[in-house]
């Protein structure tokens, strides 16, 4: 229907910097009405930043965003752009239905807005009408995500641009299909639809065109003819891993497990009957899309999420204290009120930084901190500096150093390099490799194929709460081959 007067969203030369991190480095791309534009890219490539800027939630340092030649101001954006956020941005203390009307216009003296027939019809269509009166915060993640989608779809008449940022990470396949049917409908109405997702199959199935964002730039565009899962997977990893890097040799397959779990089951069966082991000197990657159970599995290995089953240490003990855990978010792993030195030594205790009676040995604490800083190449003015003043990569090095300083037998890492720039990434891989070479065992949740390739000896693919495959990373000649293999594995499940 909208053929002559197709909408056009033009993004030109947009840059955005956070501190010393360049999230976007002059990205340019265009999206048209009546098509679904897929956006893919590794973590930290700038996808979310770009979406936030289009939606007017953040502003670019330079560059322009225009809708049909007219610049899109932040005020316009809030009216014309509708976003389904990756992390639901709603009011957990209101009911599902009230969440749909909370942003309705009105003055302070207007009557309290009530959810009407349209809202209830929308909830019904998405299959969550029976939750209309439930408080959102008490609902499952699925209902929350569907509520966010309902909010966006209700905004349909006014909005011309729809951004879906990983909209279905918590949804089942049936629910996802429902969602994508709606997406197609929006597209047929001539709206601009942008879909950001890690699931390559969805990009290939639903997008008319896919742009791959790498390092804050538009690295490639794949048109319908060239669009395929392996093609996207290849583009995602271009230039990511240095082939010249000497890859560490993992321990032999026959070696005994340093640590293992059997019949490992989550209380709500996010994963069930998993058997998994790690050898001394080995780095095992766990991969799986959001909702596959991979993240929960990893967290349960560290003992921060419940699961039942049998646990074996090689020496027969079951001491949790010998497992070090590092959460993905640095807001969950660092102490913002502490200096670098205090963060580095935060997991140490008597004998290291305190006397037998518990007296803190400040000089020794600082000495240890200085050594850790040197060994882990933490760049800071002084270890007495607050940790919040460091760059993301250096903060992450501090977090890893702190975990390793406590001498764990097994180190469990959730996304070891989230929000870390390329240089710091390879340094972190080296540090973890060093730990493994001295006999440590590592399990890491990886969300990027190059990370698996560079860091891990072995990779375990989790899908629908089961281990789908267990591959030797060393058997793959290059990262592209690994990416293609993993792409076929994770998508063949349905």
């Amino acid at each position: 229907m909208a053929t002559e007067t197709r909408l056009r969203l033009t993004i030109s030369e947009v840059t955005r910097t956070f501190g010393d991190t360049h999230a976007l480095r002059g990205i340019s791309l265009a999206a048209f009405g009546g098509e679904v534009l897929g956006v893919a890219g590794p973590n930290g490539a700038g996808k979310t930043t770009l979406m936030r800027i289009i939606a007017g939630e953040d502003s670019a340092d330079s560059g322009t965003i225009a809708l049909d030649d007219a610049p899109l101001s932040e005020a316009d954006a809030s009216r014309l752009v509708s976003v389904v956020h990756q992390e639901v941005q709603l009011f957990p203390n209101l009911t599902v239905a009230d969440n749909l009307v909370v942003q309705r216009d009105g003055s302070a003296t207007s009557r309290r807005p009530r959810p009407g027939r349209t809202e209830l019809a929308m909830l019904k269509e998405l299959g969550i009408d029976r939750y209309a009166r439930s408080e959102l915060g008490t609902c499952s993640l699925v209902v929350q995500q569907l509520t966010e989608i309902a909010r966006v779809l209700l905004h349909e008449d006014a909005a011309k641009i729809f951004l879906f940022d990983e909209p279905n990470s918590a949804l089942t396949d049936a629910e996802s299909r429902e969602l994508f049917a709606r997406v197609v409908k929006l597209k047929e109405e001539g709206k601009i639809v942008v879909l950001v997702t890690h699931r390559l199959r969805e990009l290939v199935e639903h997008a008319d065109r896919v742009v791959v964002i790498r390092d804050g730039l538009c690295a490639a565009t794949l048109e319908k003819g060239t669009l395929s899962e392996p093609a996207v997977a290849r583009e995602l990893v271009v230039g990511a891993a240095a082939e010249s890097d000497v890859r560490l040799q993992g321990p032999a397959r026959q070696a005994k497990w340093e640590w293992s779990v059997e019949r490992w089951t989550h209380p709500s069966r996010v994963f069930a009957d998993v058997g998994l082991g790690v050898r001394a000197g080995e780095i095992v990657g766990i991969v799986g899309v959001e909702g596959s159970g991979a993240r929960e599995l990893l967290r349960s290995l560290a003992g921060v999420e419940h699961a039942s089953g049998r646990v074996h240490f090689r020496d027969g003990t079951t001491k949790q204290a010998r497992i070090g855990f590092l959460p993905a978010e640095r807001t969950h792993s660092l102490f913002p009120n502490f200096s670098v030195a205090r963060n580095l030594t935060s997991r140490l205790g008597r004998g290291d930084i305190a006397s037998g009676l518990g007296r803190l040995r400040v000089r020794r604490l600082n000495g240890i901190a200085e050594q850790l800083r040197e060994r882990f190449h933490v760049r800071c003015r002084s270890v007495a500096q607050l940790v919040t003043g460091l760059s993301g990569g250096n903060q992450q090095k501090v977090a890893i150093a702190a975990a390793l300083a406590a001498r764990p037998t097994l180190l469990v890492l959730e996304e070891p390099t989230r929000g870390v720039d390329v240089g710091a990434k390879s340094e972190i891989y080296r540090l973890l490799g060093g730990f493994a070479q001295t006999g440590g065992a590592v399990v890491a949740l990886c969300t990027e194929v190059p990370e698996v390739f560079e860091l891990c000896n072995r990779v375990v693919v989790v899908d629908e709460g089961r281990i789908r495959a267990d591959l030797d990373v060393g058997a793959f000649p290059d990262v592209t081959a690994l990416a293609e293999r993993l792409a076929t594995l994770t998508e063949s499940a349905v």
Partner: protein
Amino acid sequence: MASPEVSAQARPDAGAPEVGPIRATRVGGSTALVARVVGLTFSVGIAMLVFTIINSNFARTGNLIEVVRAMSSLGLMALGLTLLIVVGELDLSVGATYGLAAMLMGKVWLAGVPFPLALAIGLGTGAAVGFVNAALTLGVGMPSFIATLATLNVAQGLTLWISNAQSIAPAFATPAPPKWQLGWFSAIGATILPFTIPIQVAWLVVLAVVVGYVLHRSLFGFRLFAIGGNLEAARAAKLPVTRYKFVTFVLCGTLAALAGILDFSFLSSTDPNAGSSLLFPVFAAVVIGGASLSGGRGLIIGTVLGALLLETLTNGLSIIGVGSYGQLIFVGAAIAGAVALDRWTAARSGGVRRLVGWRLKRDSV
């Protein structure tokens, strides 16, 4: 295997490396807190100067000593509360605990229990209230605000019940307790030490040093700051979160009980409502002293100075003839002023901006 060599090399006997001039990174210390101490010292000095100019009686040695004596019970309670606030919890029941401990000790003593045992029962009462607070907060999982609001009421009710809403004065009770016991009783809180220093001042100084040492120089204190600074990270690091919070609740209750008992001894009588007016000044002292109610920040010297500032204001204002209504207004202004000043210095030193930047990075890249 990660770093056995690190700790080995770090042993001083193995020749701790001289890594240049390490500025001792005081736990939780930062330039903002140093500024707070300097600012508080100035504030106390200026307040004293102004009161002296208006009425020179303020500066008499006797009065200055009285200021410190009168702040001691406030100070003792604030010491315990500082620990608790650093670890990220609250205790609204400190004032009620102060009253209950004194009353219960007095009652069991007058009922014939020997004084040393009664004293232990009094202190144990504080520990017990702290224990209940901890159990409700950590065991049941209530916010400490609610849990301690509940124990505040229970403790106050118990005090009124066991005392029948009457104050008690052991020296004039019939039958009066044995002489030696009365002697012990007044010795703990009413003794005058050399240089006419009241023993309550000594209690405060000694305990401030001990608690200051625990908070700023021990592994326990180090971890309190960690737990209060980032509970999630403390859990990920497998620090003993629950155990440490438990101990802190009990310490806080015990210190409140001690403050109540010492005041009972000094006044040689206690009132069922004693302590209920102390709750807000105690919080004020801690907050003025630089602790953050969201946890992870606090300073014992700041808390002590905060208590001193409050007592200086109360004492000085009454000497220059400002009535108790006016005193409340001044104390309120002092709280708001201190915290506003802190925000201002924090914003200027970039602390806030850095924290915001940290969040931004996480959220958007």
